[in-house]
């Protein structure tokens, strides 16, 4: 009895299904990549499939964490891909103009420049959404479309290749045998969780997302909160932009971060954050981003034909979203559970969060 109730508590946990899917995806890889879990030392750093999943997934995790807070306020930020491109373009073109590309001060200044540009984009989005009252999807569409043009303007339509060891560290380098980007992601996630769950900030964000007008009337500065989350989201996208350009030591205004906004939104949804706003889960988002990255790696390794990549991806995402839906679960698994124990009022606890959303 206790084990079954423990099991039920586990399956009811909001992270259960995302984690289950992640584990399933990882296991799918094992027959195709025999030593999938093997991690060995190569050239003084750890090397293995799991390490590359985290390394290549880092930018997505960052963007998705920023996106989570925006979505929690009931908004959405489509401009993150363009912000990734702008940040990378600005930073790399600044570094490439340096006489000594490896100079730490120049690299730091370039990164600062890129991040300032990202923050400006975030301020613009926040201004349009919070002050001008423009629908978030429209407001952020502006930079999504125009931003890539700006990035191309900065790079002059070329791919800028740089050769800078300190800059390579952030997205492609290793520290203490681990990819440096893992530390950056860990720091950003830790700060975000601390700020939102150890202070009232998370509650305020959720309040604004639940009902912006009501939260304003109880004294929450909802506009300021909204501007803050857009700036934070753009800053995360900016750091991701540094990572992506650093990973290949090149800025590609046309392709850097292309469609990352959609992957990020997907990661947020897989993580269990409601697109209607009002509640969010940073942990869920991190798992969601890892699910997407693992899925991408899986497609590469199990030999899905190129033409059917997207179909395969879509099929997995549909399954994940269905598993996330309480109604679907109640229909498929619930019937069996009810047959076993008809007295259980299974529907009640699931109805509560739904009311909270509306």
């Amino acid at each position: 009895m206790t084990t079954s109730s423990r099991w039920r508590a586990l399956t009811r946990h909001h992270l259960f299904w995302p984690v289950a899917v992640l584990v399933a995806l990882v296991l799918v890889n094992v027959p195709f990549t025999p030593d999938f879990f093997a991690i060995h030392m190569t050239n003084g750093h750890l090397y293995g499939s799991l390490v590359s999943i985290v390394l290549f997934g880092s930018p997505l995790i960052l963007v998705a964490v920023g996106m989570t807070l925006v979505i929690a306020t009931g908004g959405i930020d489509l401009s993150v891909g363009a912000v990734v491109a702008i940040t990378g373009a600005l930073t790399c073109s600044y570094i490439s103009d340096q006489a000594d590309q490896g100079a730490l001060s120049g690299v730091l200044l370039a990164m600062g420049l890129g991040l300032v540009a990202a923050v400006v984009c975030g301020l613009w989005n926040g201004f349009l959404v919070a002050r001008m009252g423009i629908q978030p999807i429209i407001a952020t569409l502006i930079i999504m479309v125009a931003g890539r043009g700006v990035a191309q303007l900065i790079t002059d339509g070329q791919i800028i290749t740089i050769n800078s060891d300190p800059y390579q560290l952030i997205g492609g380098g290793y520290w203490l045998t681990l990819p440096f980007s893992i530390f950056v992601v860990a720091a950003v996630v830790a700060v975000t969780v601390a700020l939102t769950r150890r202070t009232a900030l998370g509650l305020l964000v959720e309040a604004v997302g639940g009902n912006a007008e009501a939260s304003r009337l109880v004294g929450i500065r909802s506009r300021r909160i909204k501007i803050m989350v857009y700036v934070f989201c753009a800053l995360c996208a900016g750091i991701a932009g540094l990572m992506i350009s650093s990973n290949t030591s090149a800025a590609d205004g046309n392709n850097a971060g292309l469609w990352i906004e959609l992957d990020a939104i997907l990661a947020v949804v897989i993580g269990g954050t409601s697109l209607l706003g009002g509640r969010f889960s940073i942990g869920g988002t991190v798992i969601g981003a890892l699910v997407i990255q693992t899925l991408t790696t899986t497609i590469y390794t199990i030999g899905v034909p190129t033409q059917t990549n997207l179909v395969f991806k879509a099929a997995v995402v549909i399954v994940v979203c269905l598993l996330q839906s309480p109604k679907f679960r109640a229909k498929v698994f619930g019937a069996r559970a009810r047959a076993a124990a008809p007295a259980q009022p299974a529907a009640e606890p699931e109805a509560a969060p739904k009311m909270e959303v509306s």
Partner: protein
Amino acid sequence: MLNRRNFLTAAVGVAAAGTLAACAKEDKGSTGTSSGGSKTITLGFSQVGSESGWRSANTDSVKAAAKEAGYNLKFSDAQQKQENQISAIRSYIAQKVDVIAFSPVVVTGWDAVLKEAKAAKIPVVLTDRSVETSDDSLYVTLVGSDFTDEGRRAGKILEKVLEKAGHKGPVKIAQLEGTTGAAPAIERAKGFKEVMDADHKDDWKIVVSQTGDFTRAGGKQVMAAFLQSNPDINVLFAHNDDMAIGAIQSIEAAGKKPGKDILIVSIDGVKDGFVAMSEGKINAIVECNPLLGPQLMEVVKTVHDGGSVERWIKTKEGDFMQDQAKAALPTRKY
């Protein structure tokens, strides 16, 4: 209120200045035609956009070659949109240019505008990419690369690379494909497979093949996964240099030597590709030449003078092995 008015004034001012500037540009163009008289050939050229380094090299080449040939070039950038390109071609027809050249954004949907050009008796030359039309007489010729042949040449040059490296035993190839559905990706894969099926049915095998979207990041990520699932890969065939450059980084991260443990053949011949080849990291590059300006100008002259040209004029392209890389590097313009 005052602020807003100031802002509006400024905005109107900027807009007006922009229009004036545009007019000034246009004027310069048309006086050029009239002063040149009937001898100067006026060429209307509509470019796809400026999506890559390859494309901007292509644009520069056309502009430079037109200047050298003394033609009056009317250039427009379609920004990857067919409607922009159609309206550019219509304006060339209205301006009665001598020859129209364009690099079509997409394959279909050109019949109407090309018929208008034909009715106005203006010959049309395609560059770089082809179109599908109901009536073959709608364009005179295509000046561009043969992607299938590039694939074949990649196969042939791999034979040389293997021989030079003294490779023995089975050849396990990883293929990094271009954007799924794009003509260069489909045709390069096809050409390479032709060589493989014809001469190397038993000893060559493509063990993994995935799209890297023609980008460095794509090439890097896909190659990292390939190296995990198939550690015994010994040859990489990349559909463009950028993916090969990304893959090289993954190969190095896996503790292997690109160009030695894994032999690399790629297509395009951009500058960064040559840099990698001169460092010994790429074994051979099959060139896909964007510098087709001079060839285009020759064709324009022949067509304008009423001469006949071939239906498809293939760009002059070379194949480069590692030992030629250092010598060729300073001459790479893109």
